[in-house]
């Protein structure tokens, strides 16, 4: 569904992405793992078209994303650090997003209810705590019932209860056969979520394997153990 071919991106001297090629298919749940600064967020932003790659190309359903912006209708994106216009309230923000998408999709307001967002709909975005902003980001990502979900550290900053709610929601969406791309540093919570693992380091992909394959190769049952083993070997 999403195919990246030889994508390279440099920021000044830093090579953020070095010849990255990756294929993501429908109904996969992919964990994007790697140390800080390994290029995970840059890869995600390139897929979304927020960062323009120096060379290489990305296709979404066989269309090059460079000339096609409509594909973003089918992606729900939850950024690592959600930045929103300061003087908008939650309700205004939601209304604007709905206005922009004008989608015929059925709205999915399950998370809005679960997180109790409507109770604070009139709060301005700048007054929200980090965790609440994260919740708003999550609600927006799921709101339009997209085919692809891209979640950049979704549970960072969430309390245990909300974190669990979000996890249940991700599992529910996974069961519907959506492509889900998650980055996270909390490997233990990825165990029962993901089917594939991509490991990145210094801007290039070290491996892309299914979870079973990785378990087999390393002899570890838990993802955290398996990754620790891989990091030690390198």
């Amino acid at each position: 569904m999403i195919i990246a071919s030889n994508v390279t991106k440099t920021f000044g001297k830093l090579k953020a992405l070095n010849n990255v090629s990756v294929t993501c298919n429908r109904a996969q749940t992919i964990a994007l793992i790697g140390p800080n600064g390994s290029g995970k967020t840059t890869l995600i932003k390139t897929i979304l078209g927020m960062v323009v790659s120096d060379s290489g190309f990305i296709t979404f359903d066989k269309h090059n994303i460079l000339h096609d912006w409509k594909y973003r209708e089918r992606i729900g994106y939850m950024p690592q650090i959600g930045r929103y216009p300061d003087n908008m309230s939650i309700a205004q923000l939601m209304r604007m997003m709905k206005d922009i998408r004008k989608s015929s999709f059925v709205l999915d307001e399950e998370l809005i209810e679960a997180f109790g967002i409507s109770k604070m709909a009139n709060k301005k975005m700048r007054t929200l705590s980090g965790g609440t902003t994260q919740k708003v980001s999550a609600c927006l990502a799921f709101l339009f019932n997209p085919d692809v979900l891209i979640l950049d550290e979704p549970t960072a900053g969430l309390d245990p209860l909300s974190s669990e709610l979000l996890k249940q929601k991700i599992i529910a969406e996974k069961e519907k056969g959506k492509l889900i791309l998650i980055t996270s540093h909390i490997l233990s919570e990825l165990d029962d979520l993901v089917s594939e693992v991509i490991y990145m380091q210094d801007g290039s992909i070290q491996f892309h394997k299914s979870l079973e394959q990785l378990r087999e190769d390393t002899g570890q049952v838990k993802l955290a153990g398996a990754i620790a083993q891989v990091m030690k070997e390198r």
Partner: protein
Amino acid sequence: MKTIIKYVMLDLLRNRIVLAYTIILLIISFGVLNMDANTTKGVLSLMNITLIFIPLVSIIFSTIYVYNSSEFLELLVAQPLKRKTLWLSIFCGLALSLSLAFLTGVGIPVMLYEFTATGWMLLLSGFFQTLIFTGIALLASVKTRDKAKGIGIAVLLWFALTLIYDAVVMLLLFQFSDYPLEKPMIVFTMLNPIDLSRVLMLLKLDISALMGYTGAVFHEFFGSGMGISVSLAVLLLWTVVPLWFSLKQFQKKDL
């Protein structure tokens, strides 16, 4: 595109600076036009204020606005929108609000006191100044990531076009005063939108006689239908070119 323009304008209305700008313009215009029984003199003073104040406010306000809406841009770039639509909507929202403020603040008094060709020319050139300097502001803010640097560049550009350019032209005039410089002067005037507006308006005021032979040449050129159309075309070019460059830059900017 309409949706985003709507949200940009709502945001601008909410921060009340545009409203304050309108009121200040209204006070200045009524004040200046009431000061003298001869409203033509008033229009002349108003022109000088307009040609300094309007570009300054347009360029600074727009630059700061674009930097402050970085979150808004970041949010919308990940949505199913063309970058071109997004950027042009920001421009339209800003240009529309600022020119609305100008046309209310200066337009109403001028229409009441000086409903003449000169008055119309004042409004037209003020309107163009707003568009041109909003475009330049967009270019300055898309080129640099650093807010302080971007605003600094915007102020310098304004300074260059209002003062430094004139000083350089004056210097050239004195250095080469032995040569006939009337024709080159027309070109120099064309290259600076503020000077161009000023000359267009002065000629409407019929005081070009005070400018000697150059004034006569100017009158002959800018007074003709051809000259007016060329001038308007140049002003339009001044609006479109910076905007186009900023758009090209924005389309490949990383957010």
